[in-house]
């Protein structure tokens, strides 16, 4: 018997708040139980003790990318419905959480999100109005976000415990490669627009553009390790500019 539309909708909506009580001990465990509650209430509506047991079962350690955890939520709801024992449920949770985290982190945090942001910053630097940039970013990004959540949740409900196998066969890794390739293109596209002073709404002369090109080379060469030196250099420069103002 499938879950009612209300229960499915309830779980899907609650999945947006799955990280609401994120903590260092159970990670998003309590959020998982909170998200599963509509299904658990329907399954154990005549037995409050079993409901509480089920909630405790799902409040333990769990983690995963928030956009892909609806897949685990759907599969766990099906396992509960099938009356799977606690040990099997625990094994399933342990098996799936690594894949959900890694895939989501690569596809969304290191792919889709920076791509949408770079695209939007590019629009801003080419003179597109601020509210158009904001609207395009939010619509574009959240189209991908919502599609991924809905796809994962439906897959979890349809496949139950075999969802992990399904996930391995999915097109997600291929999609991630495409997004990464486009991201590298956008990065290249954006660099000249930034190097001439776009972010400060200025038209800079060649020595500054040359310094920006050198900074770009160093950034591309050393990656995230340049962040701290750049932040300190920026802060130091600001301090010098202010101290000179006080002294002079």
């Amino acid at each position, binding site marked *: 018997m499938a879950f009612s539309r209300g229960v499915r909708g309830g779980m899907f909506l609650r999945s947006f708040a799955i990280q609401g009580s994120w903590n260092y*001990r159970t990670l998003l465990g309590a959020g998982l139980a909170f998200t599963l509650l509509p299904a658990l209430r329907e399954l154990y509506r005549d037995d409050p003790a079993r409901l509480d047991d089920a909630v405790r079962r799902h409040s333990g350690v769990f983690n995963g990318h928030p956009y892909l955890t609806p897949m685990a939520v759907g599969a766990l709801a099906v396992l509960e419905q099938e009356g799977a024992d606690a040990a099997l449920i625990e094994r399933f949770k342990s098996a799936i959480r690594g894949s959900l985290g890694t895939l989501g982190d690569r596809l969304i945090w290191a792919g889709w999100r920076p791509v949408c942001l770079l695209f939007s910053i590019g629009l801003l630097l080419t003179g597109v109005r601020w509210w158009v940039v*904001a609207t395009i970013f939010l619509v574009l990004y959240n189209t991908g976000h919502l599609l991924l959540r809905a796809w994962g949740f439906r897959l979890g409900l349809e496949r139950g415990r075999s969802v992990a196998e399904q996930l391995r066969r999915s097109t997600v890794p291929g999609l991630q490669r495409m997004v990464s390739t486009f991201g590298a293109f956008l990065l290249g*596209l954006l660099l000249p627009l930034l190097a001439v002073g776009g972010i400060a709404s*200025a038209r*800079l002369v060649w020595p500054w553009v040359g310094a920006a090109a050198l900074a*770009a080379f160093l950034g591309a060469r050393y990656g995230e390790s340049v*962040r701290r030196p750049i932040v300190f250099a920026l802060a130091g*420069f600001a301090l010098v500019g202010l101290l000179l103002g006080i002294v002079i």
Partner: protein
Amino acid sequence: MIGWLAVALLGGLVGLDSTAFPQAMFSRPLIAGALAGLVFGHPLDGMMAGAALEIFALIILPVGAARYPEAGTGAVAAAAAYAQALGAGPRPALLLLAVVFGLGWERIAGMSVILLRRENERLVARDAREPPGAEEVERRHLGAMAIDLLRGALIAGAGGLVGAFLLRALGPLWALGSVTAAGVLTVAVTGMVAAALPLFGGFRDRRLVFVVGLICGSLLLLLA
């Protein structure tokens, strides 16, 4: 006063969106900065400050239990301060100071996230032997989200006020001129954008598309 209350409310929503609910990414500095600037009538300036902070935040990934600066509430504070202080000094210098302030404030915001997560641990995971039942889990989970909302509001509101005070006081002291301020900020953000290349596979794997992008960007610049 109403303006700062609006900034605090925005900060609360942005803080909530960062992790707890719904992660729709209006908490990204680019958007949060524009909204904070809008409160004081300068959305484009707010978005520019947000874009600069966004570029610094691009390479920070919220993976696993990593501890990182909270860019969203920091951007609300910095962009609101910048928009409110406009006119107190040369615009590029104020932008540079606002970005430096935002980069510092987002670290304070990040520390508040660590404290919140420890508090959440006490709230929802303290009863390891006898965890709470259905009603209690629901209540505590929603309580944690309410605390997060309050945290974001306090961080962004206080940060905005401190930032505006500092920018108004320090902006007129700027001694190095507008072009230098714009140049330094440009060099910094260009270096930071390029530092995001490893996110997409690094130069070795993506050099062809990266160079094609560079050529297209240069052509776009020449045509504009």
